[in-house]
């Protein structure tokens, strides 16, 4: 089903005309209201009036996560705080999170986009949506929630955790649509089995799974285990949250980017040069309707490609392929973004510990586990077991508090973590997606 028949099926020419008008508008507005953008545009020697075609977009400078950090917390907001009605945040590369804001109209836009995404999965007013994305600063929970209400469906704001109770509620309330991370979907299926609830007896028809990378193999597993159609949904808080793009149930092949609100590009992550359709590179997105937190050419660091071929579903919006990796060292662990540099900051704050560490990510059954190996130098060493174990617990606690992710800390002997060409190999990702 198509939620917004008019905008989702616009002929390309009309769509591009709308994009250009909205782009000009956004560029003018950020130049006038956000000192950061004015400075960057000036340095690049480009004025808002230079944007005469969509092709001129590439003349504008990129915006990076570092820029967001430098302007922490509200420096990139394009409206006064009294017009901001909501704030979300996600992990930054160090201790400070990346902060984004929404006006009332931004919340409307986001709700509409999520309503479109749910409709693309076949959801209607009659559906019961079991929303197991986390509610809070993370955009997943509230993003789906508002979209479900906009669509007129019944939403169960179950959030994360307490899996057995989730299964009872999913069964008793007759949920028809499931929204959560793909790994949690598999975990739900596993726990349901253990509880003697045959997942196939549930009423689930479809699920929207996102916030972490997954694969076609995982899609098959989820569909088999939960007897539903599993669809990929993409988004990031810096752009708006979930609802940047979504797969349609008709084609199940690539995610339609809501192009009346976002302009996607693919660039070579090393040179920054735009790449033609079909080529794989880093996804760059410009928002063209957002008020509180517009972003110009935001480098998502997600690696994918764009497919302009018409889709059987009738939507004219371009599709992006499944995200296959990152152009930086960010890890996504149980839906939480983790940068090795964040772990480093946590270690730096513990006096006796030296920042020689390695992250090992594994998938045990259906859930990701993070193990942090930390070298024990003379300062941290004690001949008493309990002191070393307390140190492990302390690091684990700090990681949980600062990053919101549970990790197992394991002390290792000094110089055992490989230091390849002076730079340690920080991450070993053993997950086979």
């Amino acid at each position: 089903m198509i939620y917004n028949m008019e905008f989702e099926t616009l002929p390309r020419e009309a769509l591009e005309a709308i994009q250009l008008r909205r782009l000009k508008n956004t560029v003018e507005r950020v130049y006038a209201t956000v000192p950061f953008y004015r400075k960057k545009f000036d340095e690049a020697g480009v004025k808002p009036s230079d944007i005469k075609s969509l092709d001129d977009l590439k003349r504008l400078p990129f915006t990076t996560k570092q820029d967001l950090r430098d302007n922490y917390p509200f420096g990139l907001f394009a409206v006064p705080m009294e017009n901001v009605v909501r704030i979300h945040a996600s992990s930054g590369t160090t201790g400070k999170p990346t902060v984004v804001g929404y006006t009332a109209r931004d919340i409307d836009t986001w709700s509409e986009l999520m309503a479109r995404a749910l409709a693309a999965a076949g959801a209607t007013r009659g559906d019961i949506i079991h929303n197991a994305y986390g509610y809070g600063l993370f955009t997943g929970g509230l993003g789906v929630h508002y979209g479900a209400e906009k669509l007129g469906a019944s939403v169960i704001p179950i959030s994360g955790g307490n899996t057995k109770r989730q299964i009872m509620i999913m069964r008793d309330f007759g949920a028809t649509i499931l929204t959560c991370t793909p790994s949690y979907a598999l975990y739900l299926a596993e726990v349901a089995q253990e509880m003697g609830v045959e997942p196939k007896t549930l009423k689930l028809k479809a699920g929207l799974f996102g916030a972490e990378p997954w694969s076609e193999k995982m899609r098959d597993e989820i569909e088999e285990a939960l007897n539903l159609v599993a669809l990929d949904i993409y988004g990031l808080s810096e752009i708006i949250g979930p609802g940047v793009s979504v797969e349609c149930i008709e084609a199940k092949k690539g995610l339609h980017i809501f192009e009346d609100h976002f302009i996607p590009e693919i660039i070579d992550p090393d040179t920054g040069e735009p790449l033609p359709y079909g080529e794989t590179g880093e996804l760059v997105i410009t928002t063209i309707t957002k008020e509180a937190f517009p972003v110009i050419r935001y480098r998502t660091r997600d690696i994918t490609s764009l497919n302009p071929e018409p889709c059987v579903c009738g939507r004219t919006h371009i599709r992006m392929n499944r995200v296959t990796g990152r152009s930086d060292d960010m890890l996504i662990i149980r839906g939480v973004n983790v940068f090795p540099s964040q772990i480093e900051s946590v270690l730096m704050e513990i006096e006796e510990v030296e920042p020689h560490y390695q992250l090992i990510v594994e998938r045990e059954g259906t859930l990701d586990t993070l193990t942090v190996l930390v070298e024990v130098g003379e300062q941290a060493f004690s001949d008493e077991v309990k002191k070393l174990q307390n140190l492990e617990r302390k690091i684990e606690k700090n990681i949980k508090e600062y990053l919101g992710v549970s990790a197992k800390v394991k002390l290792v002997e000094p110089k055992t973590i490989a230091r390849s060409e002076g730079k340690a190999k920080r991450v070993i990702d053993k997950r086979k997606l």
Partner: protein
Amino acid sequence: MRVEQISIFLENKAGRLAEVTKVLAEAGINIRALSLADTSDFGILRLIVNDTEKAKQALKENGFTVGKTTVVAVEVEDKPGGLNKILEILKKAGINVEYMYAFVQQSGNNAVLIFRFDNTDEAIKVLVENGVKVIEGKTLYSM
């Protein structure tokens, strides 16, 4: 009346203990007493050797994390109740034992107990006052 003990951090992996003993053997170090505390991830090897400084140096040069702590060595008769007598004394004085280990002397008549206390001086004082034979470091290293 303190005794120096070296402790070494060891990951739980095959062959690590042998590497420690190899380094010590090559440095001509004689081990007097030894204990190994272990968890699922790591172990702490505690050693009393004939030459603490030399052993520490050799291990450090080979990349081990080495610590030095002060422990107390006590001699008791090698017969039932020997250890219990000592522990009763410590209990009465409210002295906490962090850990301990023991070995039997070559002569076979006496056992040596090695104690790690949180308050070493206080512990020595109590032991001596109660007539317990506390062994000098020098004596132990060359036993």
